[in-house]
């Protein structure tokens, strides 16, 4: 008897599970059921992506929109499967952080074919016939501004500096933008900055640390370091401490440090007086714009293909004023 009851209960659940997928898409505007938006991130490996993920979920919650979440562990093939699963579940929109600018095109196309609006958070797709909206930081410009501030500090010291730049995964368009921003900023300032090390990190802390250690051994007088992402700072700080070069601003032997992202580590380093500047991506702006873009596309409104997050440079001079908008400062709280 009990067994029969169990079988019956399971059969009911199974039917409910199957019938849901037949999927009457929820209708938010009518107020009956909330919309559902699928959010797929290629990774949650760094604080920035976690903060972005949370900002999007919080923005959706604020608007009474349900979330389906997925993370692809840096595997484009898996992400394609996840996007197709969203389509199977007949979501009302998709927000995605793609692995790169090209492999996301079939994913966008799949969403287009299913008539599901799709926005790309923080990473744009290459030009193609696939239609999407990308909300991205202006990596090149923001990096250029950050490095320009660092160069200004270097100039004030009155001496020439040997510089190191830690590059990201150059398969990632954001990493390329930051590299280009760095190169553009140092170009024309050769009398102040001589770039002696370009360390590839592939967005990997161990690789970054090994690269920084090697570069410091080869060039012990490096006094200017820019990292393409703040999440690599623990590796850099560790290498600097080992070389007895981790000094506060104003102390003799201070290495001018700059980064990009605006994470909690960078915030703490700013507060403690070790970090000169970092370019902050406005996660809240990007999350809000991504959600709004999906809703606007769903409503049939015209949305530009690219929405730029201007971001801002935070440094010792404007720390108090800008900290509230720095996502890393809020994570810390």
């Amino acid at each position: 008897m009990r067994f029969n009851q169990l079988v019956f209960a399971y059969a009911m659940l199974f039917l409910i599970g199957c019938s849901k997928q037949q999927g009457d898409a929820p209708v938010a505007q009518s107020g009956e059921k909330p919309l559902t938006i699928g959010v797929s991130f290629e990774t949650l490996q760094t604080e920035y992506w976690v903060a972005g993920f949370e900002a999007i979920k919080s923005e959706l919650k604020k608007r009474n929109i349900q979330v389906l979440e997925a993370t692809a562990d840096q595997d484009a093939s898996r992400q394609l499967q996840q996007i197709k699963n969203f389509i199977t579940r007949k979501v009302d929109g998709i927000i995605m952080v793609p692995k790169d600018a090209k492999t996301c095109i079939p994913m966008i196309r799949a969403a287009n074919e299913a008539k599901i609006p799709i926005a790309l958070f923080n990473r744009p797709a290459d030009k193609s016939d696939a239609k999407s909206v990308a909300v991205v930081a202006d990596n090149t410009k923001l990096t250029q501004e950050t490095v320009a501030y660092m160069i200004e500090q270097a100039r004030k010291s009155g001496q020439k500096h040997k510089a190191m730049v830690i590059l990201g995964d150059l398969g990632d368009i954001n990493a390329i933008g930051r590299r280009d921003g760095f190169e553009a900023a140092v170009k024309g300032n050769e009398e102040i900055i001589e770039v002696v090390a370009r360390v590839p990190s592939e967005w990997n802390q161990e690789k970054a640390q090994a690269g920084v250690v090697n570069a410091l051994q080869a060039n012990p007088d490096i006094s200017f370091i820019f990292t393409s992402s703040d999440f690599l700072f623990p590796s850099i700080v560790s290498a600097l401490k080992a070389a007895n070069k981790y000094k506060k601003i104003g102390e003799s032997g201070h290495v001018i440090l700059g980064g990009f992202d605006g994470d909690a580590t960078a915030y703490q380093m700013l507060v403690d007086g070790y970090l000169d500047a970092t370019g902050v991506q406005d996660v809240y702006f990007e999350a809000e714009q991504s959600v709004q873009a999906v809703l606007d596309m769903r409503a049939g409104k015209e949305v530009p293909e690219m929405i730029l997050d201007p971001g801002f440079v935070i440094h010792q001079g404007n720390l108090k004023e800008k900290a509230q908008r720095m996502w890393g400062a809020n994570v810390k709280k």
Partner: protein
Amino acid sequence: MRANVLARNPLAGAFLSEYFVLLLTVILFVALAPFAVGLASSESALNIVAYLIPLFIAGTGLTIVLITGGIDLSIPAVIALTSVVGARLMTGESSVISVAVGVGAMLGVGAAIGAFNGVLITALRLPAFMVTLASMLFFNGFAVWFTQSSNIGDLPANYLALGKQLPIALTAAVVIGVVFHLLLSRTIFGRWIYALGQNAVAAHISGVPVQRLTFATYVLSGFCAAIASVILTGRLETGSPVLGREMLLDVVGATVLGGTSLFGGRGRIYWTFFGVLFLTVLDTALNLMNLSQFAVTMSKGAVILFAAVIDATRRRFVAFA
């Protein structure tokens, strides 16, 4: 004794059968279907099939290597390098000839990397683990250098069909599965492979050409990984120097979960299919259940561990019986 158990109890029979992992997959599907909205749908079935095909093809080559007692860690590098080499040759082209040249080059490069591994393992008698680990690092780096980290798009439409049209990829997977199954089960080559994995010295004394056989298995593994790359590259419409980088654990995990021994001498192509199917259904179901990534990863690890423990218990029981 085993026959008695089987005769007395069909459940015990299923537990002891070589289809046990398939049975586990069915149980997993039935158990999760009520909670994973959309899992029991035709769209989801198509997603599962599409996702498992490259894993299965790469796993097929690995199965043969594992049966001989070897290992091939270079599979992700083969996938990445063949992807960018093929894409470089085909980008901007649209003729059938360019597609044939591109795909031919991909398969050739895959087999060549397999041959490179095979030569180092047989001629220099280096451990397969070290050789394939080193070639994974080298060829992964080479793929990144070859493209300067950039992806290659603008591939011909008739090539993209290889990855995007499921019947073509499915046919390739079925043909490879059947051919390799027959190779292992119906030919002298297959018997040699098992003999080599069970006892290499005895196989050598018995006249099995151990060196040539080992070499051939790595070439086949490289070739299979290249076919997987043809499909993946077509599906993602991109030659990527990091394609397949995260696949190794899934391929090795699925093959071993299917029942192929890491110590050689035991394995079947359809076992690998069962392992791949189990992992893919699990992955899809957890994804559709809308769990957080942390919950998905932990659940996946726990379910795979549970399945492995059950399977190991079953094998001990079978051996005892």
